[in-house]
């Protein structure tokens, strides 16, 4: 079974960490990452930029600065896209929104992206469906 682990924290605290504090946390995390990689359990992992860097696309093509802030909807899925800039990202989101008009898309830039390095990753992905 494929799982995604979603990490929550207070961004004003985390983004106030000094470089040393940040590096210390990342170093401790990377020990776990390496262990999971060895065990063949780790897929893609990534760290997001703070919500101040986010833009939200609502139905009907309405673009709002900032993160998705409602609590009535739940997180149901996410995409990673590789595009030139925010306009291109919004363009992709608008296509998705047209296909699924009730969904809201928060466009959040990625700060750190660690790709899946497992040789058998694609097979497992198909298996999960």
């Amino acid at each position: 079974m494929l799982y995604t682990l979603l990490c929550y924290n207070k961004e004003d605290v985390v983004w106030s960490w000094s470089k040393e504090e940040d590096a210390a946390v990342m170093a401790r995390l990377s020990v776990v990452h390496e262990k999971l990689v060895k065990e063949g359990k780790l897929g893609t992992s990534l760290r997001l930029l703070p919500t101040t860097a986010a833009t939200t696309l609502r139905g009907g093509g309405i673009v709002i600065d900032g993160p998705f802030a409602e609590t009535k909807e739940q997180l149901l899925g996410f995409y990673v896209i590789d595009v030139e800039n925010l306009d291109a990202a919004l363009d992709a989101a608008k296509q998705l929104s047209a296909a699924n008009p009730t969904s809201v898309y928060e466009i959040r830039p990625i700060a750190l992206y660690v790709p899946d390095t497992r040789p058998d990753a694609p097979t497992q992905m198909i298996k999960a469906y």
Partner: protein
Amino acid sequence: MTDLTWIHGALTAARPQAVGALLRYFRDMNRAEEAFQDACLRALKSWPEKGPPRDPTAWLILVGRNAALDGVRKQSRTTALPPDEEISDLGDAESELAERLDGSHYRDDVLRLLFICCHPDLPATQQIALALRIVSGLSVAQIARAFLVSDAAMEQRITRAKQRVGGADVPFETPGPAERAERVAAVAAMIYLLFNEGYSAGDDPERAHLCDEAIRLARLLLRLFQTEPEIMGLTALMMLQQSRLAARFDPNGDVILLEDQDRRLWDVKLISEGLALMDKAMRHNRPGPYQVQAAIAAIHSRAPVAEDTDWAGIDGLYLALERMQPSPVITLNRAVAVAKLHGPAAALEMIEPLEKPLAGYFHYFGARGAFLLQLGRTQEARQAFDRAIALANTPAEAAHIRRHLDRVIASSSSEAAGH
């Protein structure tokens, strides 16, 4: 990270909102600060044992408020009976907590705090000192070290600032849109001044920390004004400049110019956040000086090597900036782009009329010397560099020019040897 480091981070992050809320209760800066201090001391005792509360900010506000009211009660017991409303206030902790958790006051509380620090009656130096003390929570000693003054002098500066805003008309009600925009602009200007204070400090880590603090305050302001492109621009501008920190100085602390920096040392995370904010700002089609300056910084950030820099783009952006806020300093900056595009002679001609307004400006003579040197006019270059050194603000600036001067001397002595 130990528990205490975690607590320190939580206290720092909670500070603007907590002090802002306590100020709303007490309408007195010193009392609000003391109450917060009190709550922090209790947090340091209680959190390591009991674990952090679910909402540290709400906890700090409640505990700080109750501790201060307790103090009032004890004081009044020895003199007279406390007023009823103050005692009954202690009982409604639960409903207070509920009110706090919904965060409805958050925006106004933090804004009020920022507005007070940037009160128009305060000179810029006092605004910065007050913001660092009250919003950022730096100690007086830390601020004094960052501004190279004695603790006593800084204490006095902050006390004076507090007295001034204490006596002034402090806006407890939310100001109207026009006044609000004006005051937000004042907060932004204070944050950028703070940043420049750190940025121009050379590689002194204590002062360079001011840049991180300015970025933290900008993020705070941006959370309050999520749709304001100039705040996005300001935040992006500082992030893009700060991304070069590790590449800006050599091991001796001497300045390394942008074009000579090892770009692999640039902070990719800060650059991507700055560029992301610029993308957001551009969508608003409401350009302003911070956005234009950030766009200039972004051109440098996007160039993998100095030779790839889009100097025509930079020239155009400086032209736009000149139109927004005409200033000889901006023209001087544009001349650097012009030198790259059309050669040093064109740049020199462009800055000639600036000599009078910039007669006391270090960078004017630095740039003039560099253009003259490129043109082979070494004697004049030498004079310009001499004046630059006399005007240098930091030892790093002076050392940088001195290296230029050494090159002039070396080339002229080799010329002399050749004759």
